[in-house]
C-alpha cells in the first residue's frame, strides 16, 4: 500500500515471464555448462583429444557471452521487474533475506571473474590452472543456486518461518532440498542438451559420434536426476495446497501433464539419436530437443508459480500485495485509507490495488469480456466474492463501498448492451452464456465447486426460486441481476442439466 502502481498495458504475468523465463534458462545453463566445460576439458586433456579441446573452447566463448552478459543482466532484470511489479513483496524478501542475497553476491563476483578468466585463460594458462579456474567457476555458480533456491522456495513454502520469522526457518523450508536437487538435475540436463545442439552441427564422423554420445550422457544423467526429484519436490508441497490448486486451476495442471509427456519425448529422442545412432543427430533434432527441453522447464516454472496462487508469499502476502497481517485493519478501515499513492479517481486506485496485478480490462486475463452485458450490481458482488471464484484469487479485504467503487470503474469500460444483443444468442445458448458469465466463475460443470448433482432434474419454478434467493445461498454469492430474457434463458439452459452433466 506504500507504493505507486505501474499501470502498464501489458499483463504483469507476461512481463514477469518474459524476463524470468529467459533468465532461468540461461542461469541453469550457466551452472550446468560450467560443470560440463571443466569435466569435458579434463577428459580431453587426459586423452590428448585436441579436437574435443577445440570443441570445448568454442563452447566456452558462447558460454561466456551468454552467461556472463545475458545471464547476469537478466538476473538484474528480474530484480528490477519484481521491484516494479510487486515492491511490497520485494521489500519483504529483501528485509528478511538481504544477507542471503549479499552472500550470493560474493559468489556472483567469483563466478563472473572466473568465467572471464576461464575464457581468456585458454591462451595463457597451464591446463591444470585453467581447470582450477573452471572448478572455481562451477562451485561459485552452484553455490549461487544453493542460496537463491532458499529464497525462491520460501515464497511457495515458507514453512516454520510463518511462526518464527527466523531466517533459517524460511531458508531451509519444506521444498528446499528437493528443489535444489531438481534444479541441479535441470542444470546438468540443459548443459547436455545445449552441447548436443552444438555437436549436431558437425558433419557425420567418428568425432561427431563420440561427442554426441558423450553429450547425450549428460542429458540422460540430468534427466535421471530430474525425474525422481520432480516427484520428491511435489511430495514436499503441502497436500492441501496441491489439492486446492488442482480444484481451482485447470490450465497449470494441463502444463504439468505436458511436462510429463515432454520428459518422455526428450528422453526417447536423446537415447535414440544421442546414444544409439549419434551420427544421425541432425541439427533439426538438436533444435527440437533443445526446444522441447526448454518447454519442459518453462512448464515446470509456470506450474510452480501458479501453485502459489493466491499468494506471492504463501500465507503471508497475497499476489496483489495485500499483507495478511494487515487484513483486519483493511477490513475495518478500508483500503483507500492506506493507499499512499493516489490519483483523483478512487475507483481506479482501488482497481489497481486489488485487481490489476493479475487482470487488465482488454488484454492479459481481460475483465471486459467477463463483464460485457452484465451490470454494476453483479460486478460489485463478484468483487466481494473473489475468494470463492476458481483460479485461486485473493479474497476481497476492503469495504463494500470500496467494492462498489471498483464495480463502477469496471462497469464504465464494459459493453452495456444486453447480452442477447452483444452475442446474438437466444434460448438455451443464451442461457449457457449467462451461466458462464454469472455462475461459471464459481461453479464449473465437472470441475470446481460443481453443482450438477443439486441442479439436475429440477423444475423451471425451482430454478426461478434458486435465482430469487441466490444472494442468500452463500456469503460470497451475488444476487441474480440479469434481465428477464437472460433469466428465462438461464432457466432453459439449467433444464438441460442431467446427472451426467451438461449437453
Amino acid at each position: 500500500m506504500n507504493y505507486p502502481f505501474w499501470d502498464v498495458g501489458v499483463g504483469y504475468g507476461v512481463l514477469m515471464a518474459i524476463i524470468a523465463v529467459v533468465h532461468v534458462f540461461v542461469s541453469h545453463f550457466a551452472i550446468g555448462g560450467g560443470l560440463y566445460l571443466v569435466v569435458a576439458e579434463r577428459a580431453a586433456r587426459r586423452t590428448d583429444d585436441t579436437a574435443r579441446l577445440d570443441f570445448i573452447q568454442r563452447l566456452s566463448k558462447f558460454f561466456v557471452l551468454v552467461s556472463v552478459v545475458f545471464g547476469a543482466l537478466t538476473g538484474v532484470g528480474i530484480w528490477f521487474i519484481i521491484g516494479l511489479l510487486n515492491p511490497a513483496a520485494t521489500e519483504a524478501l529483501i528485509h528478511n533475506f538481504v544477507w542471503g542475497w549479499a552472500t550470493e553476491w560474493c559468489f556472483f563476483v567469483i563466478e563472473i571473474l572466473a568465467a572471464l578468466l576461464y575464457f581468456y585463460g585458454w591462451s595463457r594458462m597451464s591446463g591444470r590452472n585453467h581447470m582450477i579456474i573452471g572448478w572455481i567457476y562451477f562451485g561459485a555458480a552452484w553455490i549461487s543456486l544453493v542460496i537463491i533456491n532458499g529464497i525462491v522456495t520460501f515464497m511457495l513454502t515458507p514453512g516454520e518461518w510463518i511462526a518464527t520469522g527466523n531466517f533459517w526457518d524460511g531458508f531451509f523450508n519444506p521444498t528446499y532440498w528437493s528443489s535444489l536437487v531438481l534444479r541441479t538435475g535441470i542444470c546438468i540436463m540443459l548443459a547436455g542438451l545445449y552441447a548436443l545442439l552444438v555437436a549436431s552441427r558437425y558433419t557425420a564422423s567418428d568425432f561427431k559420434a563420440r561427442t554426441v554420445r558423450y553429450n547425450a550422457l549428460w542429458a540422460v544423467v540430468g534427466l535421471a536426476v530430474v525425474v525422481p526429484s520432480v516427484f520428491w519436490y511435489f511430495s514436499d508441497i503441502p497436500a492441501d495446497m496441491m489439492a486446492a490448486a488442482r480444484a481451482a486451476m485447470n490450465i497449470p495442471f494441463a502444463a504439468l501433464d505436458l511436462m510429463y509427456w515432454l520428459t518422455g519425448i526428450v528422453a526417447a529422442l536423446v537415447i535414440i539419436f544421442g546414444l544409439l545412432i549419434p551420427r544421425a543427430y541432425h541439427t533439426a533434432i538438436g533444435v527440437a530437443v533443445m526446444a522441447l527441453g526448454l518447454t519442459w522447464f518453462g512448464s515446470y516454472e509456470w506450474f510452480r508459480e501458479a501453485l502459489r496462487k493466491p499468494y506471492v508469499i504463501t500465507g503471508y502476502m497475497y499476489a496483489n500485495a495485500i499483507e495478511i497481517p494487515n487484513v483486519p485493519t483493511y477490513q475495518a478501515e478500508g483500503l483507500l485509507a492506506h493507499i499512499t499513492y493516489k490519483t483523483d479517481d478512487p475507483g481506479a486506485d482501488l482497481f489497481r490495488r486489488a485487481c490489476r496485478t493479475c487482470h487488465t480490462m482488454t488484454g492479459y486475463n481481460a475483465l471486459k469480456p467477463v463483464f460485457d452485458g452484465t451490470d454494476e450490481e453483479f460486478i460489485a458482488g463478484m468483487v466481494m466474492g473473489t475468494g470463492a471464484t476458481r483460479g485461486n484469487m485473493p479474497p476481497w479485504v476492503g469495504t463494500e463501498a470500496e467494492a462498489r467503487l471498483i464495480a463502477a470503474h469496471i462497469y464504465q469500460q464494459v459493453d452495456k448492451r444486453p447480452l442477447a444483443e452483444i452475442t446474438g444468442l437466444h434460448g438455451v445458448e443464451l442461457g449457457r452464456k449467462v451461466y458462464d458469465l454469472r455462475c461459471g466463475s464459481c461453479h464449473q460443470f465437472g470441475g470446481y465447486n460443481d453443482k450438477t448433482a443439486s441442479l439436475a432434474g429440477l423444475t423451471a419454478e425451482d430454478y426461478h426460486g434458486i435465482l430469487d434467493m441466490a444472494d442468500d445461498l452463500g456469503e460470497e454469492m451475488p444476487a441474480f441481476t440479469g434481465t428477464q430474457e437472460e433469466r428465462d434463458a438461464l432457466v432453459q439452459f439449467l433444464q438441460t442439466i442431467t446427472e451426467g452433466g451438461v449437453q
Partner: protein
Amino acid sequence: MNNLPDYQFLPAPLWLITVLHILTLTLHLAAMNFLLGGLIIVLFGKFTDRWNHPVVQQFIKLFPAAMAATVTLGVAPLLFVQLVYPVQTYSAAIVTAWFFLAIVAAVIVAYYFLYASSFARKGSSRYPAFMTVSLLLLLYVSFTYSNVFSIAERPALAAQLYAGNQSGFQLNPNVGEWIWRWLHMVLGAVTVAGFFVGLIGRKHEEAFNTGKTFFLWGMVGAMMVGLVYLLTLADILKPIMRSPAIWWMTVSIILSLGSLHFFFKKRFLPASLMLFVSLLGMVVLRHYVRLIQLQDHFDPAAWVIKPQWGVFIMFLVCFVLALGLVWYMLKLFFRKPDLMTVNIGGRKDPERSGLSEPVDR
C-alpha cells in the same frame, strides 16, 4: 493473523549497512568511471593512429571486464539502498518504470558491442561505431539513474508525477534537479578515466598527456558543475553547510587536487590512493545530501533493528573467501606461462601449451 512476522525492520544496525553501501557504491563508481569516461577518452582523446594505438587497444580489451566489474559491483549498493530506502527507490522506479527497466536492455546491448569491439581485429573500421553505440547507451543509463534518484529524493514529486500519470512513462520534468547532478557524474567519470589513461599509458608520452588533459579539465569541469548542483539545492544548502557533508566535500576537493599534483609528477601510488579516498568522500557527501533532502519525509534512523548476526557472519566469511579467491584466480591468470607445464594431460609438451588464442569462429 497479527502474530505473523513483520518485515519492516533492518537485519543489521543502520551504520553497518550504510558503511557497506558507501564502500560498494564507491567501488561501483570507480569501475563505472573507468568504463564510461574511458569510452569518451578513447573516442575523443588525442591519439595518433587512434585504433592502432597500444593504449587504446588495451582499453578496448579491458572494456568488457570493466563492464562486468561495473555490473557486478553495482548489485550490492542497489541492494543496500533498497533495504534502507525501499519506498523512495521503488516509488521513483515505478513512476519511471519503462525508462528504468530499459536500463537492463541498454546495458546488455552496450555490453555486446564492447565484446564485439574487443573481438574485432586491431585497427578495425568498426571500432568507432561499436564504441559510439556503447557510449550512447551508457550515457542513457547514467542519465536515467540520475533522473530516477532525483525523484527518489523528492517524495512529493513522485506522488505528483504518479497522480498525473500511472503508465511509468515519466521522468523528472524539472531539468535543474537532475542535469547538474548527471553532468557532474559524467565529468567525474572523465576525470577518473583520465587518471587511468595516464596510468596505463605512462610509458607513452602522448597517451599520458591525453590522460593528463582529461584528468585536469575533467576535474575542473566536475568541480564547477558540482558547485552549480550544490547551488541548485538552495532550500537545503544551509543544512548541508552545517552538516558533516561540508567537511567531506572539503577533504575530497583537497585530495582530488593532491591526486592531480602527484599524477603530474607520475607518482601514481599516492595519486591513486588520494583519488580513491576523494571518490569515497564524494559518496559520503552524497549520502548526507540524501539524508537532508529526505529529512521532512523519512528518517532511516527510525527503522526497527532486528540483527541477523549469524547470517551476517556467514556473509562476512563468504566476502573474505571471495576476496581470497579473486586474488588467487588473478594470481593464476597473471602468472607467466611456463611452457614446460602448460600442456595437455600433465605431460610436459611445449608444442601443446593450451590453445594459442581464444578461437573466434
